[in-house]
């Protein structure tokens, strides 16, 4: 028999931080959207906004353009800082396609 032993070529992955804890409920929470404004986001995200406002008492859903929109900016540190500063409890991101 011939034995061959070789390296896994995929390299190591470092996990440096945990995911953010989820909120217990969306009632009474502030929710924002971070949108690239593409792939029918202009139709789907307003629908989600109205669904959230209907389904959860006391929820505040920020306008779709509360944060910078577009592929070029939504992943930036500036946008992340803007979102954090806004005091939202949760964020919906879309649309990736």
């Amino acid at each position: 028999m011939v034995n061959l032993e070789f390296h896994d070529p995929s390299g190591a992955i470092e996990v440096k931080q945990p995911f953010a804890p989820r909120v217990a409920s969306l009632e009474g929470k502030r929710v924002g959207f971070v949108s690239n404004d593409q792939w029918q986001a202009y139709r789907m995200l307003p629908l989600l906004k109205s669904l959230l406002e209907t389904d959860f008492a006391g929820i505040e859903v920020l306008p779709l353009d509360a944060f910078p929109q577009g592929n070029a900016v939504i992943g930036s540190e500036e946008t992340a800082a803007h979102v954090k500063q806004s005091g939202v409890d949760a964020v919906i991101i879309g649309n990736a396609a």
Partner: protein
Amino acid sequence: MGIPTVTLTRADFVGVMTNAVAGLGLAPDAAMVTFPIDMFLPGSDISPVQARKREFYDGLTRWRSAFGADGAADAPMIKVQGASVDDAFSRANNLMLANRWGDGLPLWPPTRERVSWIRRGATQPRGHRVGIFPPRGGVTTVETCAIALAMAGGRPEYLPVLVAAVDAFLDPASGSAQLQAASGSAFPVVIVNGPIGAQIRLNSGFGCLGPDPQRPAGASIGRALRLLQQNVGGALPGIGTMANYGGVRYTNVVFAEDEANLPPGWATHATERHAFAPGQNSISLAFANGATNIRRRGAKKETPEEDALQGMYRMADFMRVPNMPGLSGYEHGTPGILMLPGVVANTMARLGWTKASIREFLWEHSRIPTEHLRRAGCPAWLEIDSSKVVRESIALDPWPITASPDNFIVVVAGGGHPTNSYWLQGYSPGVVGRELELPPSFDALLAEAERDLGPR
């Protein structure tokens, strides 16, 4: 950010998402609600969003990652057993394909012995960290590069070029983080300057875009880079990268500038673009999304002046296209790489042309009339661009395809024949250069190559 998120995305975009998340230092996982591509197209039925609203709510309230918070250690060695050398080799190749580590062509199993041999071309220790490969975030070391080069059939004397190319690739200025996952099928182009090109049998002449058994270095180096993009960076077609077509990704593009045939007074690409000293070994990395042969010379009784000028107009005509992905490099990158054979470059130089005057000509004559941009819907792309320079360029009529003539890359490369030139259309946010470091044993490695492959 510390704020829970849920992402609305396409079903086969999950790999792109998990790569992106892993690249941020999180576990390769994310709260997502996925739908088929049809729902993302104009005029689609979006009622599934309402039907599945609970999944969005759960993503923000109940979702938990399937991964632990601990960092991953180095992967263990893979073991296969075969009845013969051929059988073991075949099993190893099957396993690598099954694990999605291959490209469809035979791979050399990266055994300890093979990888140690390749590593003789390194100047840094095996664990030296070159960077984090986007978007998946795989840790990339000298050893990771050596493993890929071993798989690609490479040799130790190729390693300095590969490590420098990977270092340039991982520089945020290259734009690789976006291009690795994007649909535009960008592929890296590595231009090598300095004596190392000829020393390691990297082609600069006939067939320099390959394949070429006489000068095989470019194939292995480019293939190794592609394997790193896929295996460490996560750019798996349709899963980690949405590149519609993939482009020339088996071996990417790796060639040397034909410095021996540079006209007197013409600087190398490395000196012009990166201010590297003449004779310095270096690489320059850009991205392209197209490759076009241009029949440049005249067919009848043109004078040398007419032949050169008509060829220049014809090349500019090939560049006058609405390459919207190229906007990412409009300000600081390149609209593309023009390859001129040495014989053409020398004829043009005798007529007074320089690399600079060629770039000026191409910039001026590749402009697109605004009316043509408008009818093709291009102004919308210019308006949403993050660059102010791009947005303001809408006012220019005819519209220049790049912000400055200096952005054009002109290199002398290709066989000694005047008929053709070559245009690698750019999709390149930046052009990143690196000087090469060679190990003290480099001459010995070249001697071994001479022994193994015959004289150059």
